[in-house]
């Protein structure tokens, strides 16, 4: 088997953008390994529009957005293997993969970019009691069946969880002829984008019940109905139960970065994001292993995935080209406070930054906040401040810091990202 300098695990939006950027940064030997039978990842089943407003300044469907990157990969002649599952990643960056044509094989690249994406939280992990009949699907599984294969998973639908895929599927199922009775959300706020609530629920008269959850599933063979109840915190309130007759329950209750391979390579993971802990160069604790996209932390917009992955591609290229960073460089930890749940990256090495470089911090907040400002402190100094009338857990926030300012505080051991009253 031919060896490659850079192996990218995953041919979805993150993997594609990383490959393109790495090639443009001068890396010739790149291989993308994709487990599905086509490039593009989950975008292929996202046939609705709204993708690419930031990147291409136009509204594209998921497959169109993916197509733009696939075209670049093809034009740049970057090789990829489809139907190829990476079975193991070792800390020495040995990649063990498998497919029909090549069988089981190993690669020994200089750098690896993790771009495996995420998976949906299944029913079992939610500990919903009741029967286990047919008709319970995660929203993404239903999306694949409907959008890629043309099959209706059900006629009368209840959706638990107001994540974006659930909201999108509420509209899709309605358009395909199903009756979507209600979307229930455990939290007092939606986990999805505001625009999706308006365009997918409000426009179709589908009620959204906040602070509600499923407390029972009826039907031994196929779902016959579900019982919703209002919750106080996470506890169902007795007496608030309401039965909905339906044949389908769709779940959109959160996404989990798929880091089984990262674990096998001893990549340190964050308990907050379930993704790798990375520096500003998107490098994990294992030198030469980088991460980007939903495997790193769950994004709200694919544009940000592409942007982040392109950065990972450039950093991986620099790593391969021997821009090897001194290991002893001093780090600034990024401390999150005041409702900032996490940040990517978790550490910044000011010494590694060019003077004119910009460092992007992405994070999510823990609750819905109004009239706040995002502030980044280095000691007493304010590095960044931006007013935000509304912050919600469903939307990712971005802060851009100037390398110059960070370098001036390189003697500190941390900077702090926080929310303050505006």
């Amino acid at each position, binding site marked *: 088997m031919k060896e490659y300098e850079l192996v990218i695990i995953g041919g979805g939006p993150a993997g594609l953008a990383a490959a393109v950027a790495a090639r443009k940064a001068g890396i010739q030997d790149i291989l993308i390994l994709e*487990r599905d039978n086509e490039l593009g990842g989950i975008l292929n089943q996202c046939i609705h529009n709204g993708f690419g407003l930031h990147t291409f300044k136009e509204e594209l469907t998921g497959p169109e957005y993916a197509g733009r990157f696939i075209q670049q990969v093809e034009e740049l002649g970057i090789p990829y293997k489809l*139907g190829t*599952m990476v*079975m193991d990643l070792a800390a020495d960056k040995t990649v063990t993969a*498998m*497919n*029909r*044509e*090549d*069988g*089981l094989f190993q690669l020994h690249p200089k750098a690896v970019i993790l771009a495996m994406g995420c*998976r*949906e939280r*299944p*029913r*079992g*992990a939610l*500990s919903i*009691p*009741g*029967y*286990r*009949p*047919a*008709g319970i*699907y*995660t929203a*993404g*599984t239903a999306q*694949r*069946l*409907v959008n890629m*294969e*043309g*099959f*209706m*998973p*059900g*006629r009368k639908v209840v959706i638990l969880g107001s994540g974006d895929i659930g909201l999108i599927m509420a509209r899709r199922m309605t358009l*395909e*002829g199903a009756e979507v009775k209600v979307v229930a959300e455990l939290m007092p706020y939606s986990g999805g984008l505001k625009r999706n609530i308006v365009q997918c629920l409000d426009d179709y008269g589908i009620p959204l019940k906040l602070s509600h959850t499923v*407390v*029972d*599933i009826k039907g*031994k*063979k*196929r779902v016959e109905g579900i019982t919703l109840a209002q919750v106080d915190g996470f506890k*169902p309130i007795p007496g608030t139960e309401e039965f909905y007759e339906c*044949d389908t329950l769709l779940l959109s209750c959160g996404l989990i970065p*798929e880091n*089984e391979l990262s*674990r096998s390579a001893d990549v340190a993971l964050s308990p907050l994001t379930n993704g790798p802990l990375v520096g500003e160069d998107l490098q994990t604790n294992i030198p030469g292993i980088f991460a980007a996209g939903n495997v790193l932390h769950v994004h709200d917009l694919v544009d940000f995935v592409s942007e982040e992955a392109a950065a990972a591609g450039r950093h991986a290229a620099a790593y391969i080209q021997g821009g090897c960073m001194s290991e002893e460089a001093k780090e600034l930890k990024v401390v999150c406070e005041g409702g900032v749940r996490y940040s990517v990256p978790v550490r910044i090495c000011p010494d590694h930054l060019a003077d004119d470089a910009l460092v992007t911090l992405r994070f999510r907040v823990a609750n819905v906040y109004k009239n706040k400002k995002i502030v980044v402190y280095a000691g007493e100094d304010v590095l960044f401040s931006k007013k935000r009338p509304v912050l919600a857990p469903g939307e990712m926030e971005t802060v851009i810091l100037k390398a110059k300012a960070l370098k001036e505080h390189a003697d500190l051991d941390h900077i702090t990202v926080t929310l303050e009253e505006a």
Partner: protein
Amino acid sequence: MHDIIVIGAGVSGCAVARELSRKKADILVVEREEDVCCGTTKANSAIVHAGYDAANGSLMAKLNVEGSRIMPELSKELDFHYIQNGSLVVMLSEEDRPNLVKLYENGVKNGVEGLRIIEREELVAMEPNISDAAVAALYAPTGGIVCPFGLTFALAENAAKNGAKFKFDTVVTGLTKIDGGWVVHTNQGDLEAKVVVNAAGVYSDVIHNMVSDDRMTITPRRGDYFLLDRTTGGHVKNTIFQLPGKFGKGVLVAPTVHGNTIVGPTAIDMDQSRKEATNTTKDGLDEVREKCSLAVKNVPLRQVITNFAGLRAHEARHDFFIGEVCDGFVDCAAIESPGLSSAPAIGRMVAGIVTDILGLEDDPTFDGTRKGIVDPKALSFEERVKLIKENPAYGTVICRCETITEGEIIDAIRRVPGAKSLDGVKRRTRAGMGRCQGGFCSPRVMEILARERGVDMNDITKAGHGSELIVGINKDRI
């Protein structure tokens, strides 16, 4: 007329069929569900009890110890997953010690080998996650864990290999005595056999009461469980029970043969008629959550991948009911825990009874071995390369979480009796049994099932008729 009809294709029915297939006999197993292993057998603790628990002198005690002794050898003959991981019954209060000693003595009387009472220091060394309150424990080195699906498929396939036939989706509605045998009335028409074996699990009272005036009542006793992700494997090594006592009756925490952790069960008696009530309840799951921490600390319940409930076929006398009830009708009833552990011995005992009734002769062509579905993960790199070269389907991963290949799934479908549904594939291969619970692989397994079985996607079910996964095509009602 068949020689024997076995009613029920759970672990007992399949064990009986497999033992009988040693003989020259025409055997038919009828099953109400679409596959073997669909009732009590599919949802239990997956434990091979050492045999110290059942009351000395009971049939349960005898068959448990015997079954547990047969299991290691059987797992080699029939190639299913079994591990002798040992079990510990943990005592949480010094005042419960008489109960622990009593359990030990009962076990010794039952003939369980290697039993020992161990004190806290040794216990902590064996199980670092044992509760801080643990004082001592009964250690049974012969306690084991088994894959209940794997065991049952192995028995069924080996029975089929030796000529036994299986008939699914067949519900027995009545039994009529005729000259030299029975008419078994079913929803699929009448069948005839010289001998009928009642291995109908929670329905064994219904079948029994069709022929006997000595009424039997089976209470479906529900057990709720949590199954945890494989990343929790190793939280405990032994199967950890809690000694009933001052702190009530606990639940077990055990590893599974596949490296998951299982926690449960509750014991909730259902109305006799509720033989399909395998739904978990909030109260039941809360009880498991609460009790599992009695004997084991920091049970990683955040790693739950699914919850489920099973029904034990409980009978008030709490013993197995095995024997010829009336002319040519043999009960293999009230098989509650430790039924799984006892299954190999139950199979032998019932087959012995039937052999005597019919005067069956040995079948010299009997082949008591069976090979399971190849597990590519267990192969060396080179062996795996060779396997994919011979059959590229072993190079395509369908279930990502458990890395199950198309080759394994096709094998599961083509076996006899083979998988017909998503659950059938899942129980045979573990595709869909991982942390995403089939989110990614279900549509692909459905495609493979449709292709291999030559049926329409609309006819693919989760677990048999009535559980269809697809209801139509897009916009078909607009």
